[in-house]
């Protein structure tokens, strides 16, 4: 068990900067998820923690010791790979005990640890099988078992669920969470799937273009994104961005979207945004769940408007509706009973109490 400290680490491949000097402190027992689109540097960062990539500049410390020049085997870490990387010629037991056998652990100790890990992962009956005879989910468990038996300071997961089908992925996600609750090892987990990040993490690190956009708990990121990138990346369906004009109309701060649609900023937010009035290039960020069908009684801060639906997607418990504003397709979530139909008009309501205002130039949430 240990803390991980990352100080201004940089990774450069020839002329390409993959990681541009990031700082990150991971606490003991913490489950941290690095998330971002492909090429954002998340896997590279993980591999630098593992010692599989050299660090161009900066410093990584595990458990207080700087490990920049320490080979992977001496870093006391365990890694779970995307394609499991099980040794195909060894049984599950041999796979899990390989590291311990290399370190010349006594046989009793090896067996005790393997049995313990197998029990945690519920794979006791698979110990004599070869990886070929296992299903994807079982292989994933074995790969985790191989990490657990080592009892390392840090677990590293590199997109471990992306090879599984959707249903199994959800199941294994819960499994990973359970295992972490049991063994409490500091964990760094890389994924491109923001749902995985939100559900698993104590803290999520959103990366983009080799830098950290924001670090925070899943709820923090969801409700208080700091940049447009984070706002758009976290949440599914993604947040809508509507270009508009922030202007003062008779003492009331308003968002002018187009000639027919002007949205008043709720009083609670007005003071916060007042200093930006006159900014001609702001984006209204609003999540689909805050664009619903209009009810008869509108609460304060909720504004009704007319929308012409292009497409509707009935999901069962809700219906996703898509309609154009200024040529952009906007997504809303309405009650299935609201009678949303393809090509039909619908009275929508925007809950501006939940709005975000983003400066289009800097990409920062105001």
């Amino acid at each position, binding site marked *: 068990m240990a803390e991980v400290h990352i100080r201004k680490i940089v990774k450069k491949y020839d002329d390409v900067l993959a990681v541009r000097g990031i700082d990150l402190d991971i606490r003991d027992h913490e489950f941290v998820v690095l998330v971002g689109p492909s090429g954002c540097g998340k896997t590279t960062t993980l591999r630098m923690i593992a010692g599989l990539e050299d660090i161009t500049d900066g410093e990584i410390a595990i458990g207080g010791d700087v490990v920049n020049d320490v080979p992977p*085997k001496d870093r006391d870490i365990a890694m779970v790979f995307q394609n499991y*990387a099980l040794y*195909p010629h060894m049984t599950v037991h041999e796979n899990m005990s390989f590291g311990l056998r290399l370190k010349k652990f006594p046989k009793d100790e090896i067996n005790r640890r393997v049995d313990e890990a197998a029990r945690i992962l519920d794979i006791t009956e698979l110990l004599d099988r070869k990886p070929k005879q296992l299903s994807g989910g079982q292989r994933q468990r074995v790969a985790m078992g191989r990490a657990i038996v080592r009892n390392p300071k840090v677990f590293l997961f590199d997109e471990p669920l992306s090879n599984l089908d959707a249903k199994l992925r959800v199941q294994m996600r819960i499994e990973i969470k359970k295992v972490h609750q049991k063994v409490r090892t500091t964990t760094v987990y890389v994924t491109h799937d923001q749902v995985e990040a939100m559900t698993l993490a104590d803290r999520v690190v959103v990366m983009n273009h080799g830098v950290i956009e924001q670090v925070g708990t899943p709820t923090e990121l969801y409700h208080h994104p700091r940049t447009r990138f984070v706002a758009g990346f976290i949440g599914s369906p993604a947040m809508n961005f509507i270009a508009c004009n922030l202007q003062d109309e008779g003492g009331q701060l308003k968002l002018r979207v187009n000639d027919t649609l002007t949205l008043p900023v709720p009083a609670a937010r007005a003071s916060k945004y007042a200093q930006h009035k006159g900014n001609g290039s702001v984006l209204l960020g609003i999540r689909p769940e805050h664009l619903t069908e209009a009810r008869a009684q509108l609460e304060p801060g909720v504004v009704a408007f007319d929308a012409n639906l292009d497409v509707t997607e009935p999901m069962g418990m809700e219906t996703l509706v898509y309609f154009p504003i200024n040529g952009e397709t906007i997504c809303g979530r309405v009650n299935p009973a609201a009678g949303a139909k393809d090509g039909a008009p619908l009275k929508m309501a925007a809950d501006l109490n939940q709005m975000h205002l983003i400066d289009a130039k800097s990409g920062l949430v105001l």
Partner: protein
Amino acid sequence: MTAAVTTNSASAAGPRYGSMSNDRKWALRWSYFFLILFAIFFLTPPIYMLITSLKTSQEISAITNPWWVYNPTLDNYRELLSSNQYQRFFLNSSIVTICVVTITMLISVPAAFALSRMKFWGSTILGMGVFLTYLIPETLLFIPLFKMMAVFNEITGITLINRWWVLLILYPTLTVPFTTWIMIGYFASIPKELDEAALIDGANWWQTLTKIFIPVALPGLIAAMIFAFTVSWAQFLYPLAFTTSESQLVLPVGIITTLIKGDVFNWGQIMTGALLGAAPPLIIYAFLMDYYIAGLTAGATKG
């Protein structure tokens, strides 16, 4: 599926157009035709050898049907197998081949591992270079090599020429490049994560090679071994040029030099000797054929 659909519509009525099963039938006919043709072409010489080996010298030189044995005899086999000379050739060949296969694998497996996994400066060019050396035929190499041995002898006083063990130095120049190339290809098909997992598990390069790569690449390893075996067992030019004394000869050269005396060809024994010489590769192929094919086609189908 297409076949089923076509058959249905054809049976319904109307003209019959070509179908998949029909195409398949013709493809099979042509395959069998050529397979039989080539089988005849390639099997005729060994069958002729077998027939000749069962004849006496008188019968061979008599004007009878050469494809039929009138008085079958095992005398040729008896004489050859009890001849000290032939046993010596066989033993020399065996020792040379076993040593060469061992040396080849000891060099090419670590070389392939280094070239495919340890990214070092010039490893790609070196990998290409290894293969290119295989493209130079031995007929071009044996004279310079002979000269090198002679110069080595002048400088050090150590005689290499006309010693059977000089072949242990010469044969690997033929086998190592190709086996290294096979192994590079095979190792390349092993996912990178596997050695990274081993690295994190605490294995060093040597342990990764012996505990992970060699077991995983076993079919490729066996394919490479069979290749090295075949090349050293059948090698003719180098032993012909570098060894002359009867005690130093290997089988292919030994048969030719001792059983052809001037213009007298002892055909019965030549054929018997060649046939017996062909037996070991045949036996090894029969046992390891599955591995050999798996080794040569690996990577092509691995998902």
